[in-house]
């Protein structure tokens, strides 16, 4: 995780059920609901790679992946 600057949060909208947990727990406040009430990453460059979203998501819908990796 110390080598994590190359990672960014990506949402899998097919899995996201809009529960809001990741949005509540993101310390950097860069997650919000989109118009379909799915999670959206607003400012990925401000992600602090704490992995809370990935660990707390019940649906495997948000993940820190290599920058530029297609989901």
């Amino acid at each position, binding site marked *: 995780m110390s080598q994590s600057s190359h990672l960014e949060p990506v949402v899998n909208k097919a899995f996201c059920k809009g*529960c*809001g947990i990741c*949005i509540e727990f993101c310390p950097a406040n860069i997650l919000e609901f989109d118009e379909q009430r799915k999670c959206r990453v607003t400012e990925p460059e401000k992600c602090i790679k704490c992995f809370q979203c*990935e*660990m707390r998501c*019940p*649906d495997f819908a948000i993940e820190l992946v290599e920058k530029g990796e297609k989901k």
Partner: protein
Amino acid sequence: MIGELTNKYLRMDRLPHMWCPGCGHGIALGALLRAFDRVKIDKDKTVILSGIGCASRAVGYLDFSTVHTTHGRALAFATGLRLLRDDVKVIVIMGDGDALAIGGNHFIHACRRNIDITAIVLNNQIYGMTGGQGSPTTPQSRLSTTTPYGNFARAFDFCNLAIGAGATYVARATAYHASLMTELYANAIKHHGFSFVETFTQCPVNYGRRNKFPDPASMLKYMKDISVPFKVAEKMGSDELQGKIVIGELIKEKEDVELNEVVRERIMKFRGGAQ
């Protein structure tokens, strides 16, 4: 990271899973996958069983030999399997009603036998699948469809029960404690003997809504607020611990003979004698 684990350990063609938005079971499942990775579990040599209920649906998604049994009886099925196959790892996932109400008797005997099975109970303090009836762990005064005036009975302390019945590894976490869950699941799997991990999970739809939790995140925060680590709890009085959840490893590495060892020894004795 989680994507690699899901690809490796889940039946991806069966996702998305059937749990409600914000269900704690999904968080526990993720923690379990991390634990699988940590212990380098062998998918071909592991059997995962469950009973009936939301928690028990986990097995359908796990890419292992899986057995979805009858309500409350998973540990008994697992006992028969384990006694004959000490070449496989046996894990049982159950909910609170499944393991403690209808399955209570089998739970205490599995503890007593100290048979090498890892029991993971996802305790959301409600019967979620059937629409929100009270369970043996619904806290006193909480609302459910069958306790519409507030639950008048006390809730079971699952871990105390397991300890009293003789389990040799007993631990507890909540869905808030994501890393702790992984650590406890991994240790429970590695433990030789009957290991038990209770995980409090949130049921936002059938428990949360009825009990004034506005959303899933608030339930996670509540679990965090009422949790006390074991080492801290040891120094607290019973009054102070009222309404608190003690988390961490409560019993670990208790030395005791495991059931299969006794059974194998008996058979070998006869084999040796027959020669």
